[in-house]
């Protein structure tokens, strides 16, 4: 609650043109939005693009920010929507690529291969086989389930909060969490991680 009021105050200052207050908001949220972009898109470059675009969008539309909504809900909404847009574009690209080659990529979700342009995943850390597989499983989640899974398990959000961020009823969020959970279970079971 305390956190909430600080952010609302900073947002109000930023709205009045206070750049230092805006910088405080960047400091508070950059890690979370970077993490969000990283899990949604699977690589550092796009994660950085997402953070940049999110804060630019926040900066441009802060005049329209309604303080009755939690600031975190608002910024997560912007970051999630930008990530989903990129996922969709990536998907469309792969489909048109498939159509050109005349190759039906049955079985594979396709977009996983574009995401793997990260030469040293997770920085310099060497990933265990298990961690690598989990990463791939999350990368391969369909765009419909990915945001709910990322927000629930990696951002510790309640189903209620996820509903607010994605602007959808909690029942829909629930269905997607269930399907996402089942998708991951199947994938990890197939990879013999479970």
């Amino acid at each position, binding site marked *: 609650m305390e956190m909430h009021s600080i952010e609302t105050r900073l947002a109000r200052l930023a709205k009045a043109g206070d750049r230092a207050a*805006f910088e405080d908001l*960047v400091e508070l949220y*950059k890690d979370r939005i*970077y993490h969000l972009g*990283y899990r949604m898109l699977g690589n550092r470059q796009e994660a950085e693009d997402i953070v*940049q675009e999110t804060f630019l969008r926040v*900066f441009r539309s802060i005049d329209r920010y309604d303080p009755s909504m939690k600031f975190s809900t608002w910024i997560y909404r912007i970051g999630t929507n930008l990530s989903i847009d990129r996922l969709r574009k990536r998907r469309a690209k792969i489909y048109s690529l498939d159509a050109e080659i005349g190759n039906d990529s049955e079985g594979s979700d396709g977009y996983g291969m574009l995401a793997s342009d990260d030469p040293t995943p997770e920085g310099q850390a060497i990933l265990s086989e298990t961690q690598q597989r*989990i990463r791939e499983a999350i990368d391969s989640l369909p765009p419909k389930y990915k945001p709910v899974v990322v927000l629930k398990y*990696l951002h510790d959000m309640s189903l209620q909060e996820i509903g607010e961020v994605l602007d959808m009823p909690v029942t829909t969020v629930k269905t997607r969490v269930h399907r996402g959970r089942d998708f991951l279970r199947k994938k990890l079971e197939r990879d013999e991680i479970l």
Partner: protein
Amino acid sequence: MNCKDALPLIHEYLDGDLPSAHAVKLQQHLRECTDCASRFRLYEKTEALVRVMDRPETPSNLTASIMSSLPPVSRKRVWTRWVRQHPAIVAAAAFIIVMMSSLLSLWNSGTQLVVRGDDLEGNIIIEGQRVIVPSDSSIDGDLIVENGTVQVDGHVRGNVTVIDGNVAMASTAHVSGNIKQVDQALDWIWFKMNEWFRAALN
């Protein structure tokens, strides 16, 4: 309870949303059904594995690069913000502008000869735009003329003021007070304000 009923309850339980009465029934089913029990464990393990994924390290210069990518504050925004933050000054400025422009319009529109004074009866002659104080007359007070020329041949015991015009004095003329010509807009406004101020005091 059969397996088809148990699956949604397993999900509800993992969401933390299963009422305790249902939880008891589910527990009972899981004890009896190895398939469902194993499915339940796999979900639990999946969740645990996903949750412990390490966080990527944020690039160190991220804040600086975000701040430098923001557009500069535009002049217009600064101006409108200043206006919003200083309503009293803006209102005062608007008032002054309206007053000035109404005074200016008064000044511009007046081409008609106006003669005012304290003791003018029988003491002046008006010929077109000319006001003459004949040599044999004596005005016991001020003479104010707008949009005309004044020729003083006689006596004026007060001030002579001419607005948008000029004064001609004969050798026989005698003015006890000041002779003033006003033909600049600002002078005129100043004069008008003085006049109003004096009127307000009286």
